[in-house]
Every structure is written in structure tokens, then in C-alpha cells.
């Protein structure tokens, strides 16, 4: 199975650098999909001046690795990179990067979408927002659970 790059880090990342690292010297890759999650300055009608990402060290890496392995089993991927930051971020900062590479575009698109839907709902990270009226934990969204559920094979078949 193709090796994957999975990193949890406080530091920023550069999407172009990560794509180049994945594709350098390769002639079998025909498609690369890159998803970047970025800290925005508003959420549900209120302003956001910063957010702090808390994570469960150890489990976060293992949980992401389990989903990367599932993505590799479901789609013919030539490479996968997942980087998730933790710590305090301000609007405009990168939060998460998913890069998937495959011979044809559909596998790369679907695998990237699958990985993001699972990162949202299953990877042990929690966002604490700084708002005009104080700090509060971000509530999980039903829409994210619904997005993850569509990848469950039993649901997809029905």
C-alpha cells in the first residue's frame, strides 16, 4: 500500500510544497486534489477573532491513519498527505490540508472529500472560538454528521 504522510503540528504548512513533495519524480499520477481548511472571521452570524484547536495527542494521529488506510482501500490512490494544525489560529490561517493523488480525477476528488468528512466528525479535535462576547466551544453540526454518514457503505447502497 502506498505510504501516506500524516502530520499534526503547531506550525503552518504550505500546500504547494506538500503537493510538490507528493508528485516529485512521479509519472504515474494523473490527478491531484488539494483541500485547505482556513480559519474564517465569522460563524453563524457572529464574528470570530481567533480559534484554538485542542487535540488528543496519540489518538488523533491513529484515527487519521485509520481513515487514510480506509481511503486507500476504497480508492486507487497514488499518494495521500494529511496535515492538521493545533494551537491558536487567527482568520486567514491554515488549519488543515488534505492532498490526494491518483491516476484519474474521480478517486482523488472522492477520497479527499471522504477524508475531510471524517476529519470533521471522527478525528479528536475541538475548536474554541474567540468571539466578541467571549470564548466558547464550537458545537458539532448535524450537517457534518450527515456528510460523514453518506460514506457508510450500507447507507450508500440503500
Amino acid at each position, binding site marked *: 500500500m502506498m505510504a501516506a504522510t500524516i502530520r499534526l503540528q503547531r506550525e503552518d504548512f504550505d500546500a504547494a510544497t506538500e503537493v510538490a513533495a507528493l508528485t516529485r519524480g512521479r509519472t504515474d499520477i494523473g490527478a491531484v486534489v488539494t483541500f485547505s481548511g482556513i480559519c474564517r472571521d465569522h460563524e453563524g452570524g457572529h464574528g470570530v477573532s481567533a480559534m484554538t484547536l485542542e487535540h488528543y495527542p496519540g489518538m488523533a494521529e491513529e484515527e487519521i491513519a485509520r481513515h487514510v488506510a480506509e481511503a486507500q482501500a476504497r480508492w486507487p490512490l497514488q499518494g495521500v498527505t494529511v496535515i492538521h494544525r493545533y494551537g491558536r489560529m487567527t482568520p486567514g490561517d491554515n488549519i488543515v490540508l488534505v492532498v490526494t493523488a491518483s491516476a484519474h480525477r474521480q478517486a482523488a476528488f472522492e477520497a479527499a472529500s471522504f477524508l475531510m468528512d471524517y476529519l*470533521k466528525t471522527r478525528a479528536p479535535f*475541538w475548536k474554541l472560538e474567540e468571539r466578541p462576547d467571549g470564548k466558547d466551544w464550537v458545537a*458539532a453540526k448535524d450537517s457534518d454528521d450527515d456528510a460523514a454518514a453518506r460514506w457508510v457503505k450500507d447507507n450508500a447502497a440503500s
Partner: protein
Amino acid sequence: MKLLYFAWVRERIGKTEEEVAPPASVGTVADLVAWLAGRGEEYAYAFENPKVIRAAIDRKHVQPDTPIAGAREIAFFPPMTGG
């Protein structure tokens, strides 16, 4: 066994981790939540709505009816909001 708390569960309890030795009658994750909720008002506050609490045993997601026998590390946290 070692317990870990994250996000608002951690804030409400006021600890990041602790060692506990629950009685033998505490057999499942749900039992452990109920037992912890009886340990003081900070625990009662953290676990006031057990349905929203998520748990992991030895770094894997588990359900409320999962047995805790043999667990080394059990974590409690709110629904995840990463990505």
C-alpha cells in the same frame, strides 16, 4: 485506569487527567459516566447530558455499552469539531 478529559469536559471537571479505580459494579462506559457524575458537582456538570459525551478506550472510539474491563486509558470529550 487513567482517565483523560478534553475540551469543555476538561474545563468543567477542572482536570486534564487522573487515575481512578471504580468499583467492580462499573462494567461499561455508560456505568463509568454515571459513577463519575456522582463524584462531585464539577463531574455532575460535565456529565449532565450523557448523550452528548463521546468516549475512547485506548485511543479508539467506543459506544456507551462498551465494557471497560482491561482498559488502560479512557478519554471523555464532546462531539468532535476538527477539520
